[in-house]
């Protein structure tokens, strides 16, 4: 039988019983639709988590003094006050001896009550260098960030995080040029950062940036730094750079036994990896749950096809009497179930796209439909047609024409 004839037969068969065909197709539509939308939601979550981490800088190595504890902001920050094993000279040593560093920015930070024209707030004052903007991906909304000249001159200038700016001067104001009071000294505001959104690592919006030299001289009174941020150049391996920094600092600090290490390097890449693997597991889980509904849909197809074969026994007998071979019958029923699943597949993809669109635009949940999941869904629906159509088609093709013609 020619393909065009087969398709015509398939079309007739599917349209003869529209309600039953539609309900069967619906099973596949729901299956494919949920697979696509669940995977989209999972991948959306993955991307948005990764984006948030990227916004801090995924190529970031953070060096913190003391404490044997592993990474984790709380633990390290607790030890930071007492341990002051890192200093400005370490920054220079790393800058000069380690390859693959895109930017390096030390930090000295502490919380202060900050006053401006009658309003006041309690916030983090962070002394750092000009490279901080590139290392921590900070954008400036108004004015400029700290410059080398500010560092050299111990300038009393400050860049306000967007949250601090609105706390002190109200929303949508531009206080560049005005003065604030930190720990008894006046600082001129030279810039405001762009709002970046919260992150689990402390909000960069709720921070005041001042030159590190100024911070060390007027606020902490020592040469030590709390943190050294290092951004690794794109084509360098983060772990390798991390190891190099470790060995350079061990030599610089005169430590022979690595067990007595007096600093910790925290690799942002690790966190990205961990987060990705968590969200990937999450995506697979969602997809698997949705996959179950796809299997249920497939069983629906099989059920319908078996009913079909029984109902059309006489027709099958007739076709055989008129010269149809097993192959012709087999192919006709197989194509019927594939057609059902493919129609279901296409509608299911549309449903999945629709749900993802709604999630994105109405409910504000990130959902990302990947071409891969669409291709996968399409392939799976065709495969389900073949797998669940195989048995009914074989049953049909094996019918004895005499018995089939007699069937009431």
């Amino acid at each position, binding site marked *: 039988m*020619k393909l065009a004839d087969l398709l015509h037969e398939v079309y007739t068969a599917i349209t003869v019983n529209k309600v039953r065909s539609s309900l069967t197709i619906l099973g596949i539509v729901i299956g494919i639709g949920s697979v696509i939308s669940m995977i989209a939601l999972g991948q959306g979550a993955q991307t948005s988590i990764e984006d948030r981490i990227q916004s801090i800088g995924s190529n970031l190595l953070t060096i913190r003094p003391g404490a044997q504890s592993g990474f984790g902001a709380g633990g390290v920050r607790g030890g930071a006050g007492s341990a002051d094993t890192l200093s400005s000279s370490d920054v220079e040593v790393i800058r000069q001896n380690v390859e693959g560093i895109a930017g390096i920015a030390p930090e000295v930070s502490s919380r202060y009550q900050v006053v401006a024209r009658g309003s006041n707030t309690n916030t983090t004052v962070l002394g750092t260098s000009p490279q901080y903007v590139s290392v921590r991906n900070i954008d400036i909304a108004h004015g400029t960030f700290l410059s080398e000249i500010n560092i050299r001159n111990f300038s009393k200038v400050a860049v306000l995080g967007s949250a601090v700016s609105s706390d002190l001067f109200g929303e949508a104001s531009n206080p560049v040029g005005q003065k604030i009071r930190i720990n008894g000294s006046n600082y001129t505001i030279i810039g405001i950062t762009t709002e970046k959104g919260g992150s689990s690592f402390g909000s960069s919006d709720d921070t005041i940036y001042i030159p590190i030299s100024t911070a060390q001289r007027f606020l902490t009174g020592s040469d030590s730094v709390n943190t050294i941020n290092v951004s690794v150049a794109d084509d360098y391996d983060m772990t390798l750079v991390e190891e190099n920094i470790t060995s350079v600092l061990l030599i610089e600090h005169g430590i022979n036994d690595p067990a007595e290490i007096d600093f910790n390097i925290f690799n942002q890449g690790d966190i990205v990896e961990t987060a990705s693997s968590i969200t990937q597991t999450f995506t697979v889980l969602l997809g698997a749950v949705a996959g179950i509904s796809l299997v249920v849909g497939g069983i629906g197809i099989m059920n319908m096809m078996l009913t079909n074969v029984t109902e059309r026994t006489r027709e099958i007998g*007739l*076709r*055989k009497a008129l*010269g149809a071979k097993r*192959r*012709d019958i087999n192919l006709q029923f197989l194509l019927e179930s594939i057609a059902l699943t493919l129609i279901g597949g296409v509608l299911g993809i549309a449903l999945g796209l629709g749900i993802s669109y709604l999630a994105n635009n109405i409910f504000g949940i990130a959902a990302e439909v990947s071409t891969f999941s669409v291709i996968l869904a399409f392939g799976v629906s065709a495969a389900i047609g073949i797998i669940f159509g195989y048995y009914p088609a074989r049953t049909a093709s094996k019918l004895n024409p*005499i018995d089939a*013609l007699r069937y009431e």
Partner: protein
Amino acid sequence: MGSRDMIEIKNVSKVYKVGEIETRALNGVSFNISEGDFVAIMGPSGSGKSTLMHILGALDTPTSGTYTLNGKDVSNLNDDELADIRSEKIGFVFQAFNLLPRTTVFRNTMLPLMYSGIDEETREKKTEEALLSVGLEKELWQNHSNEISGGQKQRVAIARALVNNPTIILADEPTGNLDTKTGQLVLNTFKKLNREKGHTVILITHEDEVARHANRIISIRDGKIEGDKIVKV
């Protein structure tokens, strides 16, 4: 008769086995049918005439004995080879018409050609010829098979049986579901096809009325041939 014998049935038996019980539906049947003949196979129900029809129609194979069709032994073929024989050499007409519902008259008639793999142009031409030769008006061709009368249905079935120009047309109680008048019309169609176009027709029936239309009547009872007489020449 000799070489003109297109059907040779030699000592054919068919045994059905259901569990432990053996039923001998045909018991050493032999006869020949020559080209262009109009034969009625008659017998009461349970006589074995249906079994004989299944063997003649290549729907089944005999347990023993040989069936030669156009010089080819078809007694030991497998399913698909039998399907080929049916597709090329046999045209069936059934008591219950067995047309595909919700399918046009034209497409129903064309169905055997779709399984024999002829190109579209030829098969449409052949379908038209077949429909015209059974006297079905063109207006009906695009009607669905469930929208026409019983007599028209059976004529569509005959056209379908004719369409691949088979060696034999096998009609199993073709008038069984029709009233006398329409039945007569259908029988006349067979007669006309036999007389004017030279088609070989085998009519399976239990009614004398119907069998009388044939040129030769083979009577069968309890799986054996009881009588074989030529009625007309």
